[in-house]
């Protein structure tokens, strides 16, 4: 932003005692113009138009109206896929958060002295994080076949990358004083890690894991769309048949489940802090 200050020199204000103070020009107009330019370009590229929106917004509610009232007779078909979805995210999150610990330790440059190793593991974690879950799920269905296994793998990889990153960032910012003190008193690296670092990162680790599990239930519900098992399979099928009242029922059940899981995990996360 140095160039900006040169282009628009700071405003000079002469105070009563003849002292000159400089007020830097606000960057808000500049940022505003940038956003407007981006907005206009995006509107052109995406074909966005308010007039269509104003004329046809009612169409949005057509499907919504068909969902209400939800088809209660469809309920018995939902339980098994719903449980599958929860189980998929449970196994994926649990394994993912466990493996994430190993990755996080290997990626934190204050524990692993070799810069190369830490760099490699950081790179792996960030590339894994950029892959959209749906894409990993689709690849997994090609490799492991259709079914819950593929979904579990996708959730596992997502959890691993998400928790891994948060965890190594936390380990790197931790105060190493107590670790060094324990080491100098003759404990091994592992023992000092156990007694100096684990107690500090454990609460945050558990609460991010819970938070991740919560989000994963939501994600897992759409993974079935690419054939990776769970509720999405049902959702895809019912949407295909345009059986919107059953879709409504699925969504109602999903909302209730997510709400309950969120409540439980919020309760435990509050307790951890």
């Amino acid at each position, binding site marked *: 932003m140095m160039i900006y200050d040169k282009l628009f020199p700071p405003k000079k204000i002469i105070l009563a005692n003849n002292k000159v103070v400089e007020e830097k020009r606000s960057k808000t107009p500049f940022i505003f113009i940038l956003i407007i330019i981006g907005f206009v370009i*995006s509107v052109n*590229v995406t074909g966005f138009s308010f007039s269509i929106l104003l004329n046809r917004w009612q169409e949005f509610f057509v499907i919504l109206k068909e969902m209400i009232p939800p088809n209660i007779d469809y309920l018995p078909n939902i339980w098994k896929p719903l449980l599958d979805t929860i189980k998929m995210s449970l196994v994926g999150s649990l394994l993912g958060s466990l493996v994430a610990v190993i990755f996080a330790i290997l990626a934190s440059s204050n524990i692993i002295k070799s810069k190369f190793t830490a760099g490699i593991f950081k790179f792996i974690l960030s590339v894994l994080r*950029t892959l959209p879950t*749906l894409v990993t799920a*689709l*690849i997994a269905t*090609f490799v492991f076949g259709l079914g819950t*296994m593929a979904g579990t793998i996708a959730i596992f990889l997502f959890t691993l990358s998400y928790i891994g990153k948060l965890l190594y960032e936390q380990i790197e910012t931790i105060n190493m004083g107590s670790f060094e003190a324990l080491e100098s*008193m003759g404990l091994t690296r592992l023992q000092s890690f156990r007694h100096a670092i684990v107690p500090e990162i454990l609460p945050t680790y558990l609460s991010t894991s819970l938070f991740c599990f919560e989000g994963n239930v939501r994600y897992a519900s759409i993974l079935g769309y690419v054939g990776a098992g769970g509720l999405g399979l049902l959702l895809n099928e019912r*949407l295909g048949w345009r059986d919107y009242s059953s879709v409504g029922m699925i969504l109602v059940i999903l909302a209730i489940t997510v709400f309950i899981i969120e409540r439980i995990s919020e309760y435990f996360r509050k307790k951890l802090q």
Partner: protein
Amino acid sequence: MSEMIENQFENEPKKGFYWISIATILLVAFIWSVSSIEVQSLNESGLTIASNIFRGLMNPDLELLFGLTTGGVLYLLFETICIAFLGTIFGAILAIPIAFLMAPSVVPAPIAYIVRLVVIVIRTVPALVYGLMFIRVTGPGPFAGVLTMSITSIGMVSKLYVDIIEDLDISILESLTSMGCTTFEKIRFGIIPQLFSNFLSITIYRFDMNLRDATILGLVGAGGIGAPLIFAMNSYRWNEVGSILVGLIVLILLVEFFSNKMRARLVKG
């Protein structure tokens, strides 16, 4: 290890039972869940496909990656950025009034509770379903994607906005009142400066996420890079998959880098 440290460790609060019970619960839940995961051993075709995927990723289709046609990866990425950008802006603007309605310090508690419930429902409906609903309004294409992104952004963004609204420093408003400022001045100089940079930071963060989620939109024909990616996968053209994924990964890493920088500046002020 000296005697003294040993004794100190002995004095550590005993939480063995607590941890063992948590571990048991998790273990039971895990065993219960694994039962329904259809573990299929990797068969021959799975392994071949895995190696094909890997080879495709290593040898991306360069012509597709750098071509400047409307079917090229660069254009598709550009379109995806535009969808995420517009969707984030609309979502962030729509989230402001909703966030104020969700804050118990602004509106009566029952209203705040009802609005919270509505937002939970909005968040739970998967993006795919919104995509289908909006395609009825706009026809297939990126326009539907923009609308879908706006709706799906609202949930998380308003939830984060509320935390900041709740943290507002009221004493500034009181001092402005005591200086005789009008309501407009109080909002302009007392509230907006406190909220603006935090809101912006959240919006940038959401843009980052939307870029990632925009691939989902392709599944229902709502534009973006998702559709070509999934078509290429379903027809086993791994080189194309490779070039699209490489483009996507580089873009997301770049955007993440810049958005982190910008957010760090915003937080520091």
